[in-house]
């Protein structure tokens, strides 16, 4: 028995010493494979009793619903790296990911002696949020190619990266992803420029035959803790969007964000949209941050229809959100009031058109 105890002591000592060695900070060698992601769930109720506000995600009404499981892999070896990010669930599939079927599915159904060919509905077989490779030519110059989250706009698909759980009209109607090739040059810690070529249409894995979209982003840091991104994406197939996204961490507790954009359609379609959204946030304690999103969104006159007001009309939205953190888990209570210029966007409890809509939601996001 004594020998067993002594053996246990030696084993534990060896373990402790080896753990201590492994605690040594590695400052050389390649970064490890990084696995990160999030899981989210929510409950939302619109005060009309049915779904009303047409922005992305959180669309299921009076239901304890799921967002998505998001899994991202990243690995860097020397100057090369890759990121592969998959998502599963309503938010990460049909609500944000293109249907990977190349087109309608032909279904041939024999009925009696005759056969009938029809179109079936394809299903989302890919769930790619990001899939790209990257190479640092130098410390200042980087090349990246693949399918990437868009560089346009303030909000993103991942709930772990947004402060508000519901999304803005600017986000919903802008690009989600762009497939392409881009080069980024960092002139200084305060200025960098990205330019790239992208597939003809937004939010699709494969082009419709052309790589004819140009995109660029100028990043500037005018003063410490304030970053501004001036973005443009333009192509003859889809249209042109100019976008300003900026955030200023004025104090450790107070942050102010702004997003402004204007889009003009092309390719035989007239009109587009424009809007501006303000995002003040204040950390009232270690665990609680309160935020507000105020948005004005307008659909331009023309033949372009978006997820929002009719052409020539506008909508304003005020959203109050809290982030309550408990380690990696964030609880997000949110209340939102939208008001349209014309009563054809929302309906009330009786189904009649109205100019206002309001909803309450409670979400939980676990990020790892």
């Amino acid at each position, binding site marked *: *028995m*004594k020998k067993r*105890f*002594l053996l*246990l*002591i030696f084993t*534990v*000592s060896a373990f*402790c010493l080896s*753990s*201590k060695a492994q*605690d*040594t*900070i590695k*400052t050389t060698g390649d970064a*490890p*494979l*990084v*696995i*990160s992601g999030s899981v989210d769930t929510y409950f939302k109720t619109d005060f009309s009793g049915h779904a009303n506000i047409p922005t992305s995600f959180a669309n299921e009404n009076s239901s304890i619903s799921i967002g998505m499981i998001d899994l*991202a892999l*990243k690995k860097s070896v020397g100057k090369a790296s890759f*990121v592969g*990010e998959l998502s599963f669930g309503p938010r990460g599939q049909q609500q944000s990911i293109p249907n990977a079927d190349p087109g309608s599915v032909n279904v041939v159904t024999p009925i009696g002696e005759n056969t009938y060919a029809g179109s079936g509905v394809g299903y989302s077989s890919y769930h790619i*949020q*990001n899939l*790209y490779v990257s190479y640092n030519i130098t410390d200042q110059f980087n090349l990246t190619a693949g399918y*990437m*989250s*868009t*560089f346009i706009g303030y909000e*993103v*698909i*991942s709930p*772990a*990266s947004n402060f508000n759980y519901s999304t803005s009209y600017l986000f919903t109607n802008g690009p989600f992803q762009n497939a392409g090739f881009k080069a980024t040059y960092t002139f200084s810690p305060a200025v960098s420029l990205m330019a790239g070529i992208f597939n003809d249409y937004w939010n699709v894995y494969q082009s419709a035959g052309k790589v004819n979209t140009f995109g660029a982003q100028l990043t500037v840091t005018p003063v*410490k*803790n*304030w*970053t501004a991104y001036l973005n443009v994406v333009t192509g003859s197939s889809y249209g042109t969007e100019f976008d300003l996204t900026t*955030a*200023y*961490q*004025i*104090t*450790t507790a107070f*942050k102010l964000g702004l997003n402004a954009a204007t889009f003009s359609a092309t390719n035989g379609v007239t009109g587009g949209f424009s809007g501006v959204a303000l995002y003040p946030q204040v950390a009232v304690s*270690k665990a609680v941050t309160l935020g507000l999103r105020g948005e004005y969104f307008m659909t331009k006159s023309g033949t372009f229809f978006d997820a929002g007001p009719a052409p020539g009309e506008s909508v304003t939205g005020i959203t109050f959100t809290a982030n309550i953190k408990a*380690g990696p888990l964030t609880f997000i209570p949110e209340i939102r009031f939208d008001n349209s210029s014309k009563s054809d966007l929302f309906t009330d409890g009786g189904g009649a058109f109205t100019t206002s809509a309001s909803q309450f939601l409670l979400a939980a996001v676990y*990020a*790892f």
Partner: protein
Amino acid sequence: MKTILVALIFVLFAKISFAQQSLLSFDEHNKYIYYQVAEAPGLPQDTLHVRGLSFLKTYYPKSKLKPSTEGKIISGENKFLVYGGISVLKHEKGEIAYEFNIEFKDQKYRFWLTNFVFTPYQRDRYGNFVAQQGIDIPLETALTKLDKKDVDGYLDETGAFCKQFGDRLKQFIISAPKKEETIKKVVTDKW
């Protein structure tokens, strides 16, 4: 006997877990500091200074050195990453910026690392972890902004980093500089 052996096991675990954080002390300004004085027998100040610069260039090439006209002190700043998560889910949680100073005299030198400031990382839209701008938390006041478990972890990693810095510096200082091997060449036009 059994009780003594079991107690010894627990003490070993506790000793290791507290080891890294205890490497840090507080200076007269109540800032965390890692401070050491080392002997370098037979090495004059100039040689130590040259080796100090070479050490930084070799192991910490991204250090930003502060200009100095004196040959007896090297000052600068740098940063290192801290990781969080469990097992395969480890990723960058943030970075800790620090200031370093290495001061030389004949046959001895001292060095200290201080002014540790933590900046948390968050994942951006491309799946990369990047620094959250404007959130700079001195480790001395980190408990007011972060969970204790996280702060203890960051202090442990800071202690481990400082120890590694010091051990490398000591080893580098006392190692003789490698002589450049001259390649023998044959001159064929003179014979």
